[in-house]
């Protein structure tokens, strides 16, 4: 095939591309992913029965998780485009984590040492560690589907950010079920599981996001 013929073909009936298409597609995938996370949580775990008692902590957990979602989504929009060397400082990604870890440290420091074990490990740390990545599978698949349609060139980073966004929306979903109400618990286990999802995403990225 002659390159001129290819160009003639590609240059025939060129459809306009609207400005925000990339942001809309990825934004929609994150929203649908969040919906899927809540759906999975309702089906598999159910909302915590003591909602009237725990709503303050529920609010905190959702606030933290969605804070991560918002910050990570901004990065995801960046890495869905070809990497032209313009990076957003990675420190911004750490802000929601720092924002939860500081008050968690204060609450730990102001509590007697005898309570620490319970505050950190809670009742269900293992359930939290397992459930959030399980809930994250569907949102991850939806977000990867969207990012594949763009043009990521740093596939490890793009996969990691897809994992981070998926992990954070599923953490927000899991929060509706989780009955461990302590700041150190959220700071440690929510962060750790979201980090786990990020690592898994980074490892899967090169395989799942490769495009031709």
């Amino acid at each position, binding site marked *: 095939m002659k*390159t*001129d013929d*290819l160009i003639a073909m*590609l240059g025939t*009936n060129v459809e306009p591309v609207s400005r925000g298409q990339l942001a809309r597609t990825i934004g929609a995938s994150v929203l649908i992913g969040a919906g899927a996370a809540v759906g999975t949580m309702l089906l598999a775990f159910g909302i915590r029965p003591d909602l009237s008692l725990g709503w303050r902590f529920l609010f905190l957990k959702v606030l933290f998780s969605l804070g991560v979602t918002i910050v990570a989504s901004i990065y995801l929009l960046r890495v*869905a485009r070809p990497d032209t060397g313009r990076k957003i400082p990675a420190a911004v990604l750490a802000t929601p984590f720092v924002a939860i870890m500081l008050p968690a440290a204060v609450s730990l420091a102001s509590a007697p040492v005898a309570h620490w074990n319970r505050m950190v490990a809670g009742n269900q740390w293992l359930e939290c560690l397992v459930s959030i990545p399980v809930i994250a599978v569907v949102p991850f698949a939806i977000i990867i589907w969207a990012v594949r349609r763009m*043009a990521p*060139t740093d596939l490890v980073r793009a996969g990691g950010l897809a994992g981070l966004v998926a992990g954070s929306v599923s953490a927000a979903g899991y929060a509706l079920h989780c009955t461990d109400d302590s700041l150190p618990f959220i700071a440690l286990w929510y962060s750790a599981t979201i980090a786990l999802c990020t690592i898994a995403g980074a490892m899967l990225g090169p395989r799942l996001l490769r495009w*031709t």
Partner: protein
Amino acid sequence: MAVGEVELKALMVAGLNGDAAAHRMLLEHLSARLRGYFRGKLARLTRGPSELEDLVQEALIAIHTRRHAYDRDEPLTPWVYAIARYKLIDYLRRSRASLTDVPLEEAGDVLARDDHVGAESAHDLKTLLNQLPEKMRSAIQCVKLEGLSVAEAAKRCGTSESAVKVNVHRGLRALAALMAREK
């Protein structure tokens, strides 16, 4: 022809707004630059020129089908360069070459070499199209090869206009995947 970032970006933006002539001109300019860029890289890796045009064409399709991943507020040249480099690395990986010596260099490299010579790849468009699902093939045939409008193509294929658009876009992406697999 000394066409630089400003002109190329203007053509790209016009193409994104639906200007087919501008888009075609952009792809012509870029094909020469891509050819020069890939030729330099492949020579350095002691590879023959036979695959050069394949790579140029794959990069052109990628630029076309991933246009929506370009941010109009950013310069165009680094964006094209990033895609060209991605396609080069992907190509080398496919052909099991060593990746150690793909150097990271300035985006200016894409603009540095211009090469209008050459221009036939090993790919055969008809053979490739025949491997596509029927819907995609007929959509590309009508809209991209015969030049029918989307509305006319929809009438002929008996589908909706949006289905035709989706099939053209998916078909081009599938075409790129087939080209990559042929090697």
